[in-house]
Each structure stands twice: as structure tokens, then as C-alpha cells.
């Protein structure tokens, strides 16, 4: 089992607040790892720490055998880490095509990838010239994920993709993310345990800024006690 990303005992402060108080996790190459936990547990901060947006004060982040916790975020992104932020953070003043084009890291990235992207998200092809403001919530989420696919990313960090979306759209999303995981490694933050349970093979639970449990999703799904204890859902 090859590890693509490893976070070792990371401590992160936002202002004077000690948000992450020792998070450790490993993301296996290939497949999906879910980052679980209640609201405010520190899931999004963990992603931001990996990305260098809120650099850790202590601890290490290793990506493909290379320490990245002291690097600047645009350099980290250039190593091949794509981020799909929560709330469908697309560029609203740019068209769908421009939103995709801006994610190119090499010339022609989009042309090479567009067939794959449009087969995953057929809607986007139809809406290609529409400005981001005109998209529905589901379409914005598709675009946000598609944007992370344009460049050759080895790892995708996806933050709360199903938040605020209709069940039908979530179904499509699950299919798309599963297809993606065949080609790239995914670290998924998801509140919706049903979604996470369907997608991920491994899980990490974070509670109050600390990683408290890791293991195989297949085992977790059966363990109602742990689900109730840490996630408050059954």
C-alpha cells in the first residue's frame, strides 16, 4: 500500500485559536479517503493546512515523499493537488469555458481533458459560454469539480460536495466522483455520511481538532456505536 499524502501530528492556529491540535492521517494512492467529523471539528482547516492556506505551526505534511508544509500554496497546487472548495467556489464573472481554461497549468490541458470532463458532466458542454452567475447550484458544483480536473492533478481535495444539493444531483455527483477515483486519488470531506459511506474505502475521523480514528469504511458502516459516538448520525 503506497501512501500519497501523509499528515503527521499537525497543529494549526487561526489567529490565536488553536484549531488543529494534532491531526495525523494517511491517504492511500488510488481510491477515496473520507475525512469525517462533526461541524467545526476541523475538517476544512485540515484541507487548508494541506494546501498551505493556513500553514501549520507544528507537524509535517508529506506529499509524494516531499515535505510541503513550508511551501507557498500556489507551489503546492502546482505539484498536482487540486482543490474543490465548499460552496461551489467558481468564478462567477467568468464563463464556464473561462472557468475551465483558467485552471490550465500547461497550454492545451483543457483540449486534452475536455472529452473526459464533458462525458462526466454533459451539462457543462451545453452551458460552455454561460457566465458562472447563471448556473444552478448543482451545475456550479459540477463546474467546481471539473475545474480541478483540467490540470493533471495527482490528488483532489473535495470539500463538502453534496452540501445544499438536491438528492437527484447528489446521485449524479456520486457517480462522477466514483469515476474520477479510478484515475486520481481523492480526499473527501463530507458531512453527509450516506454519501461518504458509498464512496470512500478509508476514513479518518476528526474530533475537536484531533484525528481520533482511522480505518476501513466497510467496517465503519457496520459499527453503529462509533458512528453515533463521533458523527452523531446513524
Amino acid at each position, binding site marked *: 500500500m503506497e501512501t500519497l499524502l501523509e499528515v503527521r501530528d499537525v497543529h494549526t492556529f487561526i489567529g490565536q485559536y488553536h484549531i488543529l491540535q494534532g491531526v495525523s492521517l494517511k491517504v492511500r494512492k488510488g481510491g477515496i479517503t473520507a475525512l469525517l467529523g462533526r461541524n467545526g471539528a476541523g475538517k476544512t482547516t485540515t484541507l487548508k493546512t494541506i494546501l498551505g492556506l493556513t500553514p501549520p505551526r507544528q507537524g509535517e505534511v508529506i506529499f509524494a515523499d516531499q515535505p510541503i508544509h513550508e511551501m507557498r500554496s*500556489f507551489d503546492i497546487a502546482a505539484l498536482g493537488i487540486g482543490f474543490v472548495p465548499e460552496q461551489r*467556489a467558481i*468564478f462567477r464573472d*467568468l464563463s464556464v469555458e*473561462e472557468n475551465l*481554461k483558467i485552471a490550465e497549468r500547461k497550454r492545451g490541458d483543457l*483540449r486534452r481533458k475536455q472529452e473526459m470532463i464533458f462525458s462526466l458532466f454533459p451539462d457543462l458542454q451545453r452551458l*460552455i459560454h454561460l457566465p458562472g452567475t447563471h448556473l444552478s447550484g448543482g451545475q456550479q458544483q459540477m463546474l467546481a469539480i471539473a475545474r480541478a480536473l483540467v*490540470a493533471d492533478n495527482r490528488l483532489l481535495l473535495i470539500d463538502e460536495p453534496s452540501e445544499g444539493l438536491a438528492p437527484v444531483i447528489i446521485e449524479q455527483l456520486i457517480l462522477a466522483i466514483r469515476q474520477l477515483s479510478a484515475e486520481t486519488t481523492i480526499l473527501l470531506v463530507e458531512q453527509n455520511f450516506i454519501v461518504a459511506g458509498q464512496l470512500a474505502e478509508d476514513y479518518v475521523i476528526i474530533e475537536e481538532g484531533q484525528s481520533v480514528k482511522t480505518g476501513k469504511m466497510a467496517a465503519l458502516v457496520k459499527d453503529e456505536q462509533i458512528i453515533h459516538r463521533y458523527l452523531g448520525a446513524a
Partner: protein
Amino acid sequence: MNQASISPSKFSSRFKSFFRGNLGGWIVILAMVLLPFITSLISGQSISNLLANESGMAKFVQGLAIEIFILALYALSYDLILGVTGLLSFGHAMFFAVGAYLTGILLKSFGWSLWATLGMVLVAAIIQAILFAVVLPRVQGVTFALVTLGIASVFYIVIQSHEMSAYAGADVGLQGVVAPEFINAADHRMRFYFVTLGLLIGMYLLYKRFVNSPTGRVCIAIRENEKRALMLGYNTFYFKLIALTLASITAALAGCLHALFQPIVSPHTASMGFTIAALLMTLIGGVGTLSGALVGAAIYRLLEYGLKNIFGEQATFLLGVVYVLIVLFLPYGIIGTWKLRALQIRSGWQRLIGLVTGKPKQA
């Protein structure tokens, strides 16, 4: 499906649609080219009189238009950093004043040629853009505005200082700059008019091209959300530096034209008030629209001129009232609101035509 490639047969239709899509712009350019001739006809001046640079209505109107073009260049540069890239600078007047003072001082006190002066203005513009950009990684938003205000204030004090008075003329301003004969606005008003107009059109097209280029798209992305742009792997600092440099060069060029055209370069051009003027012109026209900066500059100068003519000193108060009204009722500026409403207006027209002809049309 590859949407990016254009087949040759589509080219002519593309060209036509480009022409039609910019019809308003072409009309304005044509009107500006014809302006000196039309005004001379209206005022009963013969064309030969006009070409001989005789004083009169036509020469005066050209002078007013030149002032508007220079202000438009200046407002355009402010729109690039505020409207496109989202950097709020309160030191923009310095970009203009450095161009104006440097041109005046090099021509007058050092006897440089115009081309050497222009080269020096270019260098100075790049240096001051870097000076502004140095603080960028550390400060953002309002803090950036205050730091730029600080830098510009230092410049404002320096050019008015006693030590600089031999060159910059202290608080009176820099007087007696003689522009080279071939571009002297007193003797060749129309030539200066067309040079300024040409520069403005050229710069505007360059800015349009820039905003639509990949680099310009990243600047828009930075305005919307810098962190997202960072996450895509862009070192946003360089993009902000590029925008600042382009804006600085444009504003310095406007300042250079100002020094060549006006009999005096007043310290006002380096003051906070002149930065506010840039902000006003962009707000009136519509932030981030580029063409709005041109419209804003025209309205700003014409209103100022018209109201001062009618009301004298009270005009300043009335100007303020007009600006407040514009910002209240057209929060996206004239061009911005127009673009937002264009669809509604078009469908309204179609409904009206439908009513008249009795054939209701779908919008």
C-alpha cells in the same frame, strides 16, 4: 467537440459580428475623428481656417476634448487595477503626477529630447509600480489603500518642497514647459488632438485585449477571490504586479500628455483629490467595464466645465450632488447598468415594435 477552432468560412461572419458587436464604439470613434470639422462647420469657420490652427470654437472644443482624452487614459488605468484586478489604491494620482512632472522637468530643466523623456517616463512608471507592489504580499484591501496613500502623500510633499522648487515650482506648480515644435498644442492643436485620440484608442484596445487574455482572466479571478486563484496554482503577486505596471505606464503617459498640453503642471495632480477624481470617473462609468472609464471621464470634465460656466464657484457643490445622485441611482455606473439592463431594454423595444406592427415578437 472543439469550440476553440474557427473554420475559414466562419471568419467573415465572425468579422461582421465583431463589427456589429462594437458598432457603438465605431460610431464614437468616427464622431471623435470628425469632431474638429463638425464644430468648425457649425461655428461658421472654414476648413482651411481650421487647418491653419486659427483660434475659434473648433480649437476650443479640441482643447476640451484633449483634456477629456487625457483624463480618460487616467481613468482607464485606474479601472484596470480597481475594476479588473480589485486593488483599491489611494495613491493613483502619483502615477499620473510622476509622468507629468518628469516630462516637464526633463524637457524644461534638462533640455532632453521628447523621446528620451518618454523613455525615462516609462522607466519611472515601472519603478513606481514595483514600489507599490512591494507591499502587496503583506497588506490587502483597505490597508493597501492606506499604504499607497502614504507613498503618494510623500511624493505630494516632496514636489512641493522648498528643495525641489527650482525644478517643480513648489506649490505654484511647474510652469513654462515648452513642448517640442512638432507636437506643440498651441501651434498644432489638431495634430495634438489626433495624437491623443490615437493613443487613447490604442490603449483602450490594448486593455480590452489584456482583459480577455489568460493573464487578464486571472486578474478577474483575483478580484473575485484571490485564494481560489492561489489554489489553482497562480502566484497572484505577479499578476497584480503586471496590472499595476500596465496601469502605471498608462497613467504616466496621461501625465506626460498633460504636461505637454497644459501651460502649468499643478501639484493638485499629485493630490488625494486627483485620485478621488479617478475613482469618481470609474464609478460614474461603471467599475470594471473599461469603456465606462471613458464615458466617466467625459461626463466628469463636461459637467465640471458646464456647471462652472453657469454657476461659478457654487459648481463644486452641485457637482457633488450630481455624483451622489449618479451613485445612488446607477450603482453599477452608466455602462455597468446599461450592460445589466441591455437585455430588458431590448425585449422592451421588441414588445413596443410588436405593439406598433401588431406582430408580437418573442424576446
